[in-house]
């Protein structure tokens, strides 16, 4: 462990401010709490919100797992793991069941998480209304007044134009019948895992300086019309080429030499576990 910096890199004042924001975020599920996002030795937009949350949460008794698009071995995940390990000395794992804190980008693990675990999601654009309204002051007011007509209109337009809602990731959801929230760029496939979960979800947007949360057993409903229900990605007829799973989120891999398409689990540690059984 590197001892030239404070434990977990951030100074205690920064951690305290983030911790205060986290508690408020948990008390008001889905509401984006502003916080003073700190400089880190990594550019904003590369997971700094998630890293700041992880660094403010972590202690010597924790075990960390970091994934990027479901993979434990991608560049972003490996480097974040190295950085946190260097400044805390905590053990890292690839097994979802062993981790107390899991930092992730773009996926929720396939293995159901338990009550003692915290999933930290890196969020590029926390504001679900940004696509319909560019001004922060206006979106704040829209949230205050529950004025969500424009986002419903956007879904409706998509439906009219393409015959279905074409949002694949960052699919907006309604939290506790009050706040529309951006679940970060997880695929629609993972949206259902947010509802009535056992674990705590924390979302950190470093560049946009926002923290929000979904506590366990919170009502999270993906936006849908009464006559057009929410649909997640379907992998009917496809299975992972490595472990044979048919109920997981699959990545499509295209071999340009042969023109073949393969499918394999996006959650690499789950896939390995299935194969080892």
């Amino acid at each position, binding site marked *: 462990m590197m001892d030239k910096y404070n*434990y977990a890199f951030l100074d*205690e004042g920064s951690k*305290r401010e983030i911790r205060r924001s986290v508690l408020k975020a*948990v008390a008001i599920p889905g509401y984006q709490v502003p916080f003073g996002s700190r400089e880190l030795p990594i550019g904003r937009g590369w997971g700094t919100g998630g890293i700041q949350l992880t660094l403010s949460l972590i202690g010597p008794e924790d075990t960390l797992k970091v994934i990027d698009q479901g993979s434990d071995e991608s560049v972003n995940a490996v480097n974040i793991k190295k950085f946190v390990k260097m400044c805390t000395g905590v053990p890292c794992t690839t097994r979802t069941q062993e981790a107390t804190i899991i930092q992730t980008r773009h996926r929720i693990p396939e293995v159901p998480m338990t009550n003692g675990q915290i999933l930290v999601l890196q969020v590029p654009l926390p504001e679900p209304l940004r696509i319909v309204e560019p001004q922060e002051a206006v979106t704040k007011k829209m949230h205050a007044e529950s004025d969500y007509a424009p986002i419903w209109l956007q879904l409706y337009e998509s439906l009219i134009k393409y015959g279905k809602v074409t949002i694949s990731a960052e699919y907006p959801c309604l939290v506790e019948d009050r706040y529309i929230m951006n679940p970060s760029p997880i695929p629609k496939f993972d949206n259902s895992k947010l509802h009535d979960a056992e674990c705590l979800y924390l979302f950190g947007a470093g560049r946009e300086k926002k923290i929000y949360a979904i506590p*366990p*057993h919170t009502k999270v409903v993906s936006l849908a019309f009464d006559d057009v229900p929410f649909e997640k990605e379907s992998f009917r007829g496809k299975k992972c080429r490595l472990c044979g799973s048919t109920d997981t989120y699959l990545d499509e891999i295209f071999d340009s030499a042969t023109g073949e398409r393969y499918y394999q689990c996006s959650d690499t540690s789950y896939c390995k576990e299935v194969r080892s059984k």
Partner: protein
Amino acid sequence: MKQLHTFDEVFDSQKVFRHLLEAMANPGRRCDIRSQSEKLFGDDPDMLAVAMTLLDAGVSFCAPQNPALTEQIVLLTHAKSVPLEQADYVFLSAQDQLPGMLASAKRGTLENPHTSATLIVKVPEGQAGEQVLLSGPGVDGLAAAVVPSDVKQAVALRDRQDYEYPQGIDFIFLLPESELLCIPRLVRMEEC
């Protein structure tokens, strides 16, 4: 030089925060902070442990009718002691102060509900436990819990304020035996 306390600002704060987070995310659950708060001296070590974890010069607090605690918090955290109406954190040692406090404490605004006050309430020893039903985010359906009567009364008083959500006040109760119990603004408590 005599050291006032042995509470570690880095590691003990982290542990108290994780207990606070667990309690806030799972309303009704009791989380033990004794091994951290016993490193602090004075009449209110549990309150000081929470103050050391959350407060600094960036926020304000009020500890009505408790000059000793006010002095200790200012000394240890450098947080600003302000009138109740402006306080981000309110430390309450006596339940009879609660009705007035709830009426005056910050409830946040519809645009910025996070600017509301957090009430840290000390529950005295020797209270009978009352069976209640909890519901809301963090609670699995309708869950039975046993809470001291002060907690039940405090939540009932808060409900009478009729805050328009997302405005509201979050409670952190400090039970005897150095346990934390949180009731955030969306959680409802009913008679069993």
